């Protein structure tokens, strides 16, 4: 097992190189680049720059170097922990990412926790009442939720409850009211919570659906196991059988699924952050893609890749720990 983990760790290295190289080359492959967009020569419009000025910018950002050389430079610096400075505002990429992480994690994290809290009871109830009206209703509702595109839901929620011509219960945009800086702690916190409700709801309902389906299957599997039947045969009360014996085993596979959800926690949700104009990771990625801000794109890609690969690894390891029948040796 130890050997397996070490081997997987070593295999992360070529994969990371592959991801960063591919990303870098693709950015360089595009005829549009930061200089063109800044200079207004691209689709951006605005005041056009002279060829000389553009040349200077290209040189300044190292866009004239051959792609592989530039990639080599980037890798060299990244190994020393330096992700470079943003083309847009010349601030260090690491700073830009770090200041956005807390918001993204708080929103995606609350959505993830909330969806687990709702999904597990739903899945368990559906499994216990298997085939009955309750089960069918839950399954159907969950299925409908699963199929609603989150951006349409977000738009309709904003329209009907947040400041449209209809109800005006919740704030429409942003993460704080304009006067937030003048607020004391508790009003500030309340204000923040109000702003978080809609994005969290939108992110929750979709993952709620898939997790509750997993929970249901996993619970059904647990209920059909021998030890549950033995527990019943011993005359234990149904509640004890379900909560103490079946549920505990049904939760195990859900832990591994949790590991696979982690990348979203870091990467954020581009669409939801863009609709609610939340300054999170998704928005940063979107902005940097829009302006071909190479160092920022690379920085986010590396971070997202590391987290994704590690969570795959964690999920695989949890699998073995949880189910001794599986072995990777």
């Amino acid at each position, binding site marked *: 097992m130890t*050997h397996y983990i*070490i*081997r997987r760790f*070593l295999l992360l290295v070529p994969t990371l190189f592959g991801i960063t190289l591919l990303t870098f080359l693709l950015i360089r492959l595009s005829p549009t680049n930061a200089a063109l967009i800044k200079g207004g020569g691209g689709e951006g419009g605005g005041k056009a720059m002279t060829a000389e000025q553009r040349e200077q910018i290209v040189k300044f950002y190292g866009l004239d170097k051959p792609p592989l050389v530039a990639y080599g430079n980037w890798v060299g610096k990244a190994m020393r922990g330096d992700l470079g400075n943003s083309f847009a505002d010349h601030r260090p990429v690491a700073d830009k990412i770090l200041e956005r992480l807390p918001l993204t994690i708080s929103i995606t994290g609350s959505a993830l926790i909330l969806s687990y809290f709702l999904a597990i009871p739903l899945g368990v109830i559906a499994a216990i009442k298997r085939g009955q009206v309750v089960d069918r209703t839950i399954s159907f509702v969950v299925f409908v939720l699963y199929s609603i595109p989150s951006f349409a839901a977000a738009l309709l929620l904003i329209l009907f409850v947040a400041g449209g011509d209809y109800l005006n219960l919740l704030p429409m945009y942003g993460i704080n009211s304009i006067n937030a800086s003048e607020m004391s702690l508790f009003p500030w916190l309340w204000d923040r919570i109000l702003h978080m409700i809609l994005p969290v709801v939108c992110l929750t309902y979709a993952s709620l659906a898939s997790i509750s389906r997993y929970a249901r299957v996993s619970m059904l599997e647990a209920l059909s196991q021998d030890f549950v039947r033995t527990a019943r045969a011993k005359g234990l009360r149904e509640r004890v059988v379900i909560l103490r014996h079946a549920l505990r085993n049904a939760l195990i596979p859900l832990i591994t699924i949790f590991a696979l959800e982690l990348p979203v926690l870091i990467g954020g949700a581009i669409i939801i952050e863009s609709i609610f104009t939340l300054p999170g990771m998704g928005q940063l990625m979107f902005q940097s893609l829009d302006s071909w801000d190479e160092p920022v794109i690379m920085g986010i890609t590396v971070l997202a890749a590391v987290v994704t690969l590690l969570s795959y690894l964690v999920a695989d390891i949890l699998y073995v720990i949880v189910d001794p029948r599986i072995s990777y*040796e």
Partner: protein
Amino acid sequence: MTNIVPPPPLLKVEHLKVYFPILGGVFRRPVGEVKAVDDVSFTVNRGQTVGLVGESGSGKTTIGRAIIRLTQPTAGVISYQDKAISKLDSAAFRPYRKKIQIIFQDPYNSLNPRFSIFEIIGEALEIHFPAMTRADRRERVAGLLDKVGLKRDHLDRYPHEFSGGQRQRVGIARALAVNPEFIVCDEPVSALDVSVQAQIVNLLQDLQEELGLTYLFIAHDLAVVEHISDYVLVMNQGKIVEAASAEAIYENPQHDYTRKLLSAVPKL
């Protein structure tokens, strides 16, 4: 009386070794090897049945697969009619695929569930006799079904409609399709009910008589082998521990391991 030179054996296995590497450590380098078959030599004469007996994991199936080239030998030579076939490349080995065939143990997984019985048995004809028309192939497959005790009606049926014994008959017909001389029977009855086992063994014996086949009959059960074999090889941990005629093995076992195997045979 003149001195008659005995005909060369049909199959000759000399110092056959099949080792499987054990991968370990961080880099999955070979850190050791499983000696599945460790220096095994024997011969099979034309028209004979040689039984190959051992517990599971003794290497008997690996020998069968090495002969039919489903596994690469590590060392040693397998010759067929004095021609070393284990060193041939796959194109040069192709003619031998018509001469050497195999019957598998598991009647449930050895037939492609998406193929009809005609397609399963006819595939070999399609490969080796590309000029044959579909009608000819159907005719030939129907003949084969008749030979193994199935009906012509079964041509367009699918494997899941058949019992284990019937499936094994299909497996036998598939092996017979190319008119082989030598068949590796890899535990052909181990997965079947005792009552069906006898039918299949009898069928194999009848076919041997009719078609002049030669068998390497692999089993983990001495009772089955004793019934069909002329000669028996007993394998343990990759080596042949005893080789003798079927009666000799049964009546006067020399090796402890053989005695152990015999004691496991239910006495009638």
